[in-house]
């Protein structure tokens, strides 16, 4: 019908000869009228919602959790702490930037992970450590500890601990030379250098006051002296779920249990489990180093094994190793086991029937 009509219309309107041609087009297919918004619709596979958690959010929360410990380090060791923290953090950031440039990738400083590495390394160094050494350790942590393995997410070992291990191997004497906090120094007679509570016990069989261990007014690394400051930050991380609670729990429980067994066997030779828990870098290690997401297992069962293994190794190193402290090596060793633990701790599927 329409085909017959159109030629009839055309002669009646000779003024508009060009117009009738575009008109029949829409009739061609009733389904041609597709939805045409200003912008085309975005296609994606579900889910289309996101919880809005991001890697930088996690990292900056870890930085926030380290604030109490950092502040206490600054109070106790003042300029020495300020210098080491500043140098360590800034060299970590510069190293990260240079690696980004060499790898020709976008700058990853905003994700906060390099800052954490620098800060954590600084907090594990003795206050009298040289600034150049701190810078070297920091660069090693970023370049070798993190980027040689492929960058964020791919490293096997906690970069800060690897940096510290490197410094420990390179400068064994400065790495084990401790000084009293400035706030405590003048009440003591034996001058500036002092052994850590763990060192005192190991080499001189002297136990330290628990109050000092709790508040941190003792000799030790910058950030490992106060158990309370670390607990405040650590518990914040656990509550916000930025750290797996199973790791510090199993780590500390395992240290308590294993050292308790030795203490029960011979209370004269071995320190009490409470002393073991509060002294040295255990608290810092358990809450901030062992819980490093990249280098700890992803499964719940794996987290228990990881923490328990680290605790066992720690006590063995502290009691029978050549060094008074074993946090660093116990965590690094467990880091190496993480891929294996992940592989063999697959959770039981929902409704899995065990044959």
């Amino acid at each position, binding site marked *: 019908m329409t085909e017959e009509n159109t030629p009839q219309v055309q002669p009646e309107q000779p003024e508009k000869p060009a117009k009738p041609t575009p008109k029949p087009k829409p009739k061609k297919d009733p389904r041609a009228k597709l939805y045409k918004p200003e912008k085309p619709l975005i296609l994606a596979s579900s889910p289309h919602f996101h919880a809005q958690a991001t890697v930088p959010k996690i990292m900056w929360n870890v930085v926030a959790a380290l604030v109490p410990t950092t502040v206490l380090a600054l109070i106790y060791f003042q300029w020495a702490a300020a210098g080491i923290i500043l140098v360590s953090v800034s060299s970590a950031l510069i190293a990260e930037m240079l690696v980004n440039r060499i790898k020709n990738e976008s700058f990853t400083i905003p994700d906060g992970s390099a800052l954490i590495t620098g800060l954590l390394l600084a907090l594990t160094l003795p206050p009298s450590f040289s600034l150049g050494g701190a810078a070297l350790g920091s660069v090693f942590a970023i370049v070798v500890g993190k980027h040689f393995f492929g960058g964020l997410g791919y490293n096997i070992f906690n970069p800060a601990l690897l940096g510290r291990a490197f410094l420990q191997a390179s400068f064994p004497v400065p790495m084990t030379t401790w000084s009293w906090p400035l706030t405590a120094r003048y009440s003591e007679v034996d001058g500036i250098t002092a052994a850590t509570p763990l060192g005192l016990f190991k080499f001189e069989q002297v136990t330290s006051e628990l109050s000092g261990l709790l508040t941190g007014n003792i000799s030790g690394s910058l950030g490992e002296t106060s158990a309370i400051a670390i607990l405040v930050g650590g518990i914040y991380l656990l509550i916000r779920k930025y750290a797996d609670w199973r790791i510090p729990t199993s780590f500390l429980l395992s240290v308590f249990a294993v050292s308790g067994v030795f203490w029960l066997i011979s209370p004269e030779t071995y320190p009490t489990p409470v002393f073991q828990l509060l002294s040295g870098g255990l608290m810092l290690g358990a809450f901030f180093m062992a819980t490093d997401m990249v280098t700890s297992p992803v499964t719940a069962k794996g987290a228990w094994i990881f923490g328990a293994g680290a605790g066992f190794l720690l006590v063995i190193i502290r009691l029978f190793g050549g060094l008074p402290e074993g946090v660093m090596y116990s965590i690094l060793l467990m880091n190496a086991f993480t891929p294996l633990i992940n592989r063999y701790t*697959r959770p039981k*599927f929902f409704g*899995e029937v065990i044959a």
Partner: protein
Amino acid sequence: MSERTSHKISTFRKGVHPDEFKNLTCRIPSMDMPLPAEVFIPLQQHIGAPCEALVAKGDMVKTGQKIGDSSAFVTSPIHATITGKVMGVASYPHPLGAKVPMIHIKREGDEDEWELLTVPENWESASRETLQTVVREAGIVGLGGAAFPTHVKMAPPPDKPIDHFILNGCECEPFLTCDHRSMLEETDRILKGMAIMMKMLDIKDGIVGIESNKGDAIAIMKSRIEALNLNFKVQSLKVKYPQGAEKMLIDAALGRKVPAGGLPMDVGVVVNNIATALAVYEAVVDGKPLIQRMLTVTGDAINKPGNLIARIGTPFQACVDACGGLSDETSQVFMGGPMMGLVQYDLQVPTLKATSGIVCMQTSQLKNMRHYPCIQCGTCVSVCPMDLVPTRISRLAETGKYDECKEWGVFNCIECGSCAFVCPSGIPLVQWIRVGKVKTTEKQQKLKAQA
């Protein structure tokens, strides 16, 4: 208080808490959508064999007339949803993305002439076989999304004794409120539909599972159960996604875990959706085949969000227009909710039997998402309701290690998307797992063919 009501709020392990956005529509009464000018009815809207068209171009059809069926056991017939003329049986765009065969019906005039099913006079005295035939002829499928033919579900094999029926009123997807509105508006018919299905299964124990954010629905369900003198229990459930996934629901309501790779009937349970119960009632009592359903049209790009009772096969565009149209800034349209919904490229696609909602968005929660490498945080592991390790399966799928994919339970994934929802690195975990499923199946079939 009655023994039937439980005040304990139960749930399953793990899961996530997406923003709900249910307030947009949950207080607005549903609206009967005006009859659409044309409908497109896909020959396959269910799991099982596709239907063959029983009509041809030029035929006149009545509302409710059967226009497609198949002789297979697992299938479900389709019906004309408006009165009009068949314009053709051809391939048209489908919400799943591809073009599939559909029957295109155009309305002629304003009449809406129904062709009803032959139904027993009194369902309470009808035999199980009669009821099953009615449910089959009505084309009823699971309306929660999976679209499994209901008459097949209602005929479990004799070696799988069923003792519990669960009515799924969780509606855990954000935005969707059609089940919520149905429970408020059609309470009695839903409960009677549930009673009919329980009669078909010959069981006594019925549970209505409702998330506790629908307090009004829980209250009205409890009071009507009492008034109708039914022996059902209302179980309030914690508001958590994916509470409405049937395995999670059975775990929450009865503490039974469906075996991995198994079905609810393996633990003696049959789960059906609110909308399915309503459809069963309408078929068995009113003789109406499944030709319409309630669906939520919502999202921040919809001018007047609400729940529509729309004919199946109505183009999305018509549904959207009935709700005041779309904003010019619309960036995404999903069929279903934002967690599991399918994204659409064209609004001429028709609604299906299992379409529970059309969500139109102009803002996106993924807009500012940046990708980072996996930092092994394990959040995906801590939320996966099926107890999988999504980060590992997705990486195995990405690197083509399909044998290991299977070992790590890729086929247990229910694709709820909780893992990708929480991933701080913005990794498309569930999307990779879907790839893994397809590729692993392909590889298995290839090996089978070679053997």
